[in-house]
């Protein structure tokens, strides 16, 4: 027997299915059937028990109901009985003779007993009471009288005999339970046979006044009223033929579907066993809710049965009624259903097995067929026929397998077909590659050799030279033969470099980074040194292992020297540009500043960052309009020369002279502009100064001209005046002293004197025409003036304070004229202090003033006099302005002073406070040489023309 593994799939499947299907099913069926039967039985028995219990319960309920009713009924009967007469039945003297019948045995006998009367009614005749009771309650009512022999005789009743008459004259024998109870003075409740039927009854004793039992009162309901109960019980069906019945402990069937009323005590089962008797025996011993069980075989011979069938009965005992409640049926009926189920299961079982087998067989076929097919196909393929295809069309996994297989087959076919092609192609490729390789090799060699400027050296991992081109020979000096196969490259490095580990560093870098670059001095064969720039790379195999190195180097000594030269030139040019005093700036075509020198920074007064890249128009005073103008000119003419404009130095205007040109590249495209800005502020300043001085000089000239005029006039006036006063003198001499005209002549004389003074002043005024300018110390004219006036000042009590600064530079001026000025000022100061109370001080101080780079000498003459009123301050320098009284002062003094100082290029300033004092400040410039020489020239020219003018005015 082959192991399961090797069985065919079909067999495997079938057996597996069978096992899988059969075994569980069988087992399950068995188990379940068994279980099922057990449970059925259990259920059946349980059912029976329940039925029996229910019946008892029903009976109990019924009983209770009836008992309750009867108890109530009895009470009502009692009530009616006693109330009716409100008395106890009276036993009269009248005797009744009648025939009485034992209720049970039906034995008849004669009896004689006193007549009872109740409420005047003879009870034996008057049945009003019992009828009333019946009327109210339904049921029956009886009045019993006790008669001889402890018999209870019905004297009034509505219990009927079979013939419908009242059952009067029937009696309960003393053996009756009822009688016994009554005689015991107990109320009897229960089931009792009354006359001819069973009743549910209640009897109560009737007592006489002495408390003796004289009779009984009865109410009862015929058991028939429990009809519904009986009907219900009878209708109980158990299984197919099972039923319930009730018998008393004597075997009388109280309730039975068929044999009601019969006594079955002696009934025996098919084995001859008096099972009923057994049941009665057992039943009466049962406790209240206890259930008894009996099984017995039974054969219904009358139905033609041949074999007995087992029956099962369950029973309970309802003691009160002496009812044995029995329920049961054929045992086989329990399993009736089971048989069906068993049959059904077998059917289904076999059915499914059959089905399973079918399916399995079909499945196995479905499975094995494609597999067989595949097997065949592969066999054929293996044999060489690659065109085979598996014919598998299912959509399951095998189908997938089949399709995959087919695809694979296709592939294999293609592959084999392609293989030849590939091989062919590859062969060609290899040949081509070999050729390429050869070409490359040649190319490489030619590169190596043609590169005479570059040294290309290949070394192996140990440093042995593999390749050495002609460039290397040229560079280093050694020939190829001297070097190849040897460890040589170290020789090309300087000893000092080798000592400090340069070679080690190079190899470390090239190993970690793959390449390295270095500029070092290398050694030639002849020992000479040159600077080389070299790159070294590694040669690696695919696994990354280093096979060797390649160094490519070139001589950069020349390059370095060129670079050095270039740098030097650059530095030189840069120096030139930076040290230029003029600002040099370049812009890009859009006008943004690309370069500027230090002078530009200074001109703009801004830090580098703010200038670089800024549009240049930002810095022109006229902004973008100016920039555009300049650009327009540049474009038109190509260059701009000596163009005057101004820069905006943070709000300040800086006049500049600019020259600009366009910068072009080799293709003549405009790449920017170049501008040189010359700061004209100094020049402008000088120009301003010159203008000022010229103005001054012009003014001075004018003054001079005026002076000339005045001098001329004065001169002209002299003679006539002289003549007039001389003649006057003569006339006065000639006239007597007392002549009336002498006064008038005196007045005329005074006029002449005034005229003379005026002419004098005029002459003074004009005297500036000839100025004798030389370098002098300002102290000289001051001291001279003080010399002249000193005594007089002291006489007037004026203190002179001198505050002369040391080291004042010399000024250029006319000593006489300056002396005159100071004399005038001192005189004025004296006059101002004339009538002052308090201190009289004249302070003369000299100092050096500095402003805007110009220096002036200031002479301040301060008095403590009465001061000048504000409204006059502006006018004091006007000719002929005088605050003095008529005759004192001509008002020419200060205007003459002003003129003199103006001609010196200076100015006079006055500060005055009323009653505090006045300060006159004479400010004289320290002239720069150019101006001085200019002035000298003007002076010379003046002198030349002066004489001529004089001549011509004559």
């Amino acid at each position, binding site marked *: 027997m082959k192991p399961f593994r090797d069985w065919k799939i079909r067999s495997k499947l079938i057996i597996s299915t069978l096992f899988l299907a059969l075994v569980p099913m069988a087992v399950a069926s068995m188990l379940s059937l068994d279980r099922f039967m057990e449970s059925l039985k259990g259920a059946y028995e349980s059912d029976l028990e329940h039925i029996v219990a229910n019946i008892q319960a029903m009976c109990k309920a019924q009983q209770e109901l009836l008992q309750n009713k009867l108890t109530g009924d009895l009470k009502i009967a009692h009530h009616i009985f006693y109330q009716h007469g409100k008395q106890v039945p009276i036993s009269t003297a009248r005797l009744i003779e009648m025939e009485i019948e034992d209720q049970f045995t039906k034995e008849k006998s004669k009896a004689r007993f006193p007549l009872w009367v109740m409420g005047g009614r003879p009870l034996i005749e008057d049945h009003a009471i019992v009828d009333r009771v019946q009327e109210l309650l339904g049921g029956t009512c009886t009045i019993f009288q006790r008669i001889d022999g402890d018999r209870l005789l019905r004297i009034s009743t509505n219990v009927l005999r079979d013939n419908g008459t009242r059952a009067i004259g029937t009696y309960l024998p003393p053996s009756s339970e009822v009688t016994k109870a009554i005689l015991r003075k107990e109320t009897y409740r229960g089931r009792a046979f009354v006359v001819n039927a069973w009743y549910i009854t209640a009897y109560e004793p009737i007592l006489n006044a002495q408390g003796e039992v004289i009779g009984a009162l009865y109410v009862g309901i015929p058991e028939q009223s429990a009809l519904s109960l009986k009907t219900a019980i009878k209708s109980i069906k158990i299984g197919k033929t099972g039923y319930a019945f009730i018998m008393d402990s004597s075997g009388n069937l109280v309730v039975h579907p068929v044999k009601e009323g019969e006594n079955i005590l002696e009934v025996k089962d098919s084995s001859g066993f008096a099972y009923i008797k057994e049941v009665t025996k057992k039943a009466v011993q049962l406790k209240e809710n206890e259930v008894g069980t009996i099984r017995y075989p039974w054969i219904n011979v009358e139905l033609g049965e041949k074999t007995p069938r087992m029956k099962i009965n369950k029973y309970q005992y309802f003691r009160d009624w002496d009812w044995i409640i029995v329920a049961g049926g054929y045992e086989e009926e329990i399993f009736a259903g089971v048989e069906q189920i068993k049959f059904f299961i077998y059917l289904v079982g076999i059915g499914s097995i059959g089905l399973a087998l079918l399916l399995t067989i079909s499945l196995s076929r479905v499975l094995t067929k494609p597999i067989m097919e595949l097997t065949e196909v592969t066999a054929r393929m293996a044999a060489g026929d690659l065109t085979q295809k598996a014919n598998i069309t299912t959509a399951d996994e095998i189908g997938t397998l089949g399709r995959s297989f087919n695809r694979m087959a296709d592939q294999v076919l293609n592959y084999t077909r392609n293989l030849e092609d590939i091989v062919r192609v590859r062969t060609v490729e290899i040949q081509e590659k070999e050729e390429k390789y050869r070409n490359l090799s040649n190319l490489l060699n030619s590169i190596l050799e043609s590169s005479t400027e570059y040294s290309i050296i290949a070394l192996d991992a140990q440093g042995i030279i593999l390749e050495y081109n002609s460039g290397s020979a040229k560079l280093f000096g050694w020939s190829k033969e001297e070097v190849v196969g040897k460890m040589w490259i170290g020789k090309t490095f300087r000893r000092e470099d080798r000592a400090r580990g340069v070679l080690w560093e190079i190899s470390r870098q090239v190993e970690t980074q793959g390449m390295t670059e270095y500029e070092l001095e290398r050694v030639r064969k002849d020992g000479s040194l040159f600077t080389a720039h070299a790159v070294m790379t590694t040669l690696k195999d695919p696994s990354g292992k280093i096979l060797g190195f390649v160094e490519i180097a070139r001589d950069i000594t020349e390059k370095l020297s060129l670079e050095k030269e270039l740098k030097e030139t650059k530095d030189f040019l840069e120096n030139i540009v930076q040290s230029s005093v003029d600002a040099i700036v370049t812009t890009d075509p859009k006008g943004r500043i690309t370069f500027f020198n230090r002078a530009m920074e200074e001109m703009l007064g801004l830090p580098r960052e703010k200038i670089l890249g800024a549009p240049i128009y930002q810095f022109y005073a006229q902004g973008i309009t100016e920039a555009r103008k300049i650009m327009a000119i540049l474009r038109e003419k190509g260059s701009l020369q000596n163009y005057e404009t101004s820069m905006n130095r943070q709000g300040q205007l800086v006049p500049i002279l600019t020259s600009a040109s366009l910068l072009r590249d080799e293709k003549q495209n405009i790449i920017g502009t170049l501008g040189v800005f010359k700061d004209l502020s100094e020049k402008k300043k000088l120009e301003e100064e010159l203008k000022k001085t010229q103005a001054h000089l012009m003014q001075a000239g004018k003054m001079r001209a005026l002076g000339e005029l005045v001098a001329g006039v004065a001169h002209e006036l002299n003679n006539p005046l002289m003549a007039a006063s001389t003649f006057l003198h003569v006339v006065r001499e000639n006239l007597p002293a007392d002549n009336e005209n002498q006064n008038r002549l005196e007045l005329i004389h005074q006029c002449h*004197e005034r005229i003379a003074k005026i002419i004098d002043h005029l002459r003074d005024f004009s005297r500036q025409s000839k100025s004798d300018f030389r370098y002098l110390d300002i102290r000289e004219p001051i001291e001279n003036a003080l010399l002249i006036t000193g005594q007089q000042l002291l006489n007037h009590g004026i203190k002179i304070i001198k505050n002369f600064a040391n080291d004042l530079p010399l000024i250029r001026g006319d000593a006489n004229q300056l002396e005159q000025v100071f004399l005038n000022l001192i005189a004025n100061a004296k006059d101002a202090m004339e009538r002052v109370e308090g201190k009289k001080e004249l302070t003369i101080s000299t100092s050096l003033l500095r402003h805007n780079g110009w220096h002036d000498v200031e002479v301040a003459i301060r008095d403590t006099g009465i001061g000048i009123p504000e409204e006059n301050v502006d006018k004091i320098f006007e000719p002929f302005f005088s605050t003095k009284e008529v005759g004192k002062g001509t008002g020419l003094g200060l205007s003459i002073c002003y003129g003199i100082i103006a001609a010196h290029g200076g100015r006079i300033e006055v500060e005055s406070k009323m009653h505090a004092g006045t300060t006159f400040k004479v400010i004289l410039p320290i002239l720069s040489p150019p101006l001085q020489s200019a002035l000298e020239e003007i002076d010379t020219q003046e002198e030349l023309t002066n004489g001529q003018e004089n001549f011509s005015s004559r």
Partner: protein
Amino acid sequence: MAKKILVVDDDELVLIAIQELLSPLGFSVVKACSGADALEKIAQEQFDLIILDIIMPEMDGFEVCQRIRQTNSYTETPIMMLTAKSGEEDKERGIEVGANLYLPKPISPKKLIALVEEALKQ
């Protein structure tokens, strides 16, 4: 003997005025209206005092003075210059050319008389 005074001035009015002034004082006043005229006159007679105006056309007072001084008989004669400009220069120049006295114009008669008398006192 009355002293002789020569007055040299291009202005006629001045000449008359001085003559009028000095003559009553017993001086003999001779008028010359130019330098050339003056030089002629001093050749003709000896004067005790010469009064010269400086500003004159053709020959100014300085030159006249110089010339007079060059004349033999006038090396010691007092010469008075009438200066229209009151300048140091005039004085200096005057000293150079040999003048003794200076009288600024406009001339006050009293001053003129005083100076003349002083000049002629020695």
